[in-house]
């Protein structure tokens, strides 16, 4: 069953919107942009990816019914949850949505088990208990059953929230940045659990995150949000590999984004040359031939993972862009290492920690940067 979503909603700072349930505007972080999105969610993981405040949480709240869109349509298969043209707006409790809130929203006055059991009032007490215990067992949190939410660890609390959302067998699952406050090791465990849940249940699952890593490990499909609009969607590899706008680029970890000017074009060679410059220096880069005109200002993006580092000049390769520079910094993140090289402007190259040690890279060392023209993207004007 596919979830289809079409939402238009004006978001304002708290004050006047009467369309939100309960009379108070909830969760709208933005000042004055509007949400205008349309997409489908088939069974499996669909990642909503974007910066904080871009409308992802409001989308989840609209789907669950906590907030009402100004117009649009939300339906699971043929069952309509919301349709502004038909004045249909199903109450929250009838939508069959499992929602894991960003702050978990675990009931502090109830034990973990009571939290997971909450809501299944149509079942007998014994059935409720059985379902809750089965779900807690599956997520390996049976040992927390009698504890209150403040007495369990972050990872356990996350699992309790997940168990609670899944226990009543929802038709769709909404997860709002579930792993943001969790350490790496626990994250991996929960990601594994989510994957097996996905394999078993095959529900439409919307997973909101601003972590590229989570998007890539879980996402069968990524939808990129910016200022309330969808700016890109597709498989993680293509969305993150070929950024369409500067903001998507920045969001998806393309670290090299520069303003440049077209200084040469050769249709027969299939390339254009652009000059990147800043206050300190400049360099020339060959990019694939395009429609831009000579002298035009463009925005150049090169993914940091596409840049090769060498301790001697790379010869006899197809790499058209080769430049010499000096290492200004080596930033070691848990997942990857970024080497910053000054070759006129400062470039960021993403390499493995092992490569750094094998090549013996260090600050102030002279290195060569190299990358193909095809790794160069000229972005849309919208920065």
């Amino acid at each position, binding site marked *: 069953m596919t979830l289809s979503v079409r939402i238009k909603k004006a978001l304002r700072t708290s004050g006047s919107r009467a369309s939100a349930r309960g009379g108070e505007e909830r969760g709208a972080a933005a000042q004055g942009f509007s949400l205008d999105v349309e997409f489908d969610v088939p069974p499996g993981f669909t990642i909503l990816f974007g910066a904080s405040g871009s409308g992802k949480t409001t989308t989840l709240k609209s789907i*669950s*019914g*906590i907030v009402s869109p100004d117009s649009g349509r939300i339906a699971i298969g043929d069952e309509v949850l919301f349709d502004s043209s038909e004045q249909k707006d199903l*109450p929250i*409790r009838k*939508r069959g949505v499992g929602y894991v809130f960003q702050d978990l*929203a675990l009931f502090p006055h109830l034990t973990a088990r009571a939290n997971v059991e909450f809501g299944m*009032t149509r079942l007998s007490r014994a059935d409720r208990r059985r379902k809750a215990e089965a779900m807690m067992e599956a997520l390996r949190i049976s040992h927390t059953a009698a504890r209150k939410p403040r007495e369990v660890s972050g990872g356990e609390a996350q699992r309790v929230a997940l168990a609670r959302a899944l226990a009543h067998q929802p038709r769709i699952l909404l997860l709002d940045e579930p792993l943001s406050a969790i350490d790496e090791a626990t994250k991996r465990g929960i990601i594994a659990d989510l994957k097996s849940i996905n394999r078993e249940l095959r529900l439409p699952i919307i997973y909101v995150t601003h972590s590229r890593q989570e998007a890539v490990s879980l996402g069968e499909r990524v939808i990129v949000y910016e200022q309330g609009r969808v700016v890109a969607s597709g498989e993680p590899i293509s969305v993150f590999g070929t950024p369409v706008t500067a903001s998507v680029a920045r969001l998806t970890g393309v670290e090299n984004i520069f303003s440049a000017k077209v200084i040469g074009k050769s249709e027969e060679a299939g390339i254009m040359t652009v000059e990147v410059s800043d206050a300190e220096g400049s360099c020339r880069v060959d990019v694939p031939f395009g429609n831009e005109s000579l002298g035009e200002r463009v925005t150049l993006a090169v993914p940091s993972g596409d840049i090769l580092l060498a301790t001697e000049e790379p010869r006899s390769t197809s790499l058209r862009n080769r430049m010499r520079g000096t290492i200004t910094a080596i930033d070691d993140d848990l997942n990857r290492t970024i080497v910053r090289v000054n070759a006129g402007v400062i470039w960021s190259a993403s390499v493995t920690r092992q490569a750094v040690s094998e090549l013996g890279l260090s600050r102030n060392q002279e290195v060569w940067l190299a990358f193909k023209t095809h790794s160069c993207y000229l972005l849309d004007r919208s920065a």
Partner: protein
Amino acid sequence: MAEIDWFPLTLSLRVALIATAFVVIFGVALGWLLARHRFFGRELLDAAVTLPLVLPPTVLGYYLLIVLGHRSPIGNAIEAITGHSLVFTWEGAVVAAAIGALPLMVKTSRAAIAAVDTNLEDAARTLGESELKVFWRVTMPLASRGIIAAAMLAFARALGDFGATLMVAGNIPGRTQTAAIAIFDAAQAGRDNYALVLVFILSAVALVLVYSTNKLTAGHR
């Protein structure tokens, strides 16, 4: 010591308990309405409910006399139902005490309910619960401390009402003379020992209530 007339105290207790019962029900309902719903005239309603807190007691009492008296439709309706007017009766004292205590209850309940995270209520809704269940199983338990404290304060206030009660119920010994009024009466007549007994008891009750309220609402969590 001469024989002590306990009637004013037992009357005050009866009046305060019944008044508090009404005040808790209406006060929590109003507090919830004001905390969770936005509607036209909301702050006007809040102001109207707060009024008894700042009006001079005799002004309040006068308004009540008008509303409950012979010339008002409400007064006549009550007389038709109960057989007598509320003016100069202990039931009138209940109304006066309740009106005086309502603002406290509403304000404190509103704050206690507003302090409950709306995400929790929304989560309860996504799990399939009706609005009533959400209220009883999530909002109330989490607001309970504040509401119980408010009820205690309301009781203390109802116990000690003077000005409005005097105007509406009068000072009829053995019928409508509440403890606060009896103190006034005794002080005027020079029966200081009796006045002291009543003063001491009322002070002790008030102290216990305020102490308990503070303990309930002090830092927990």
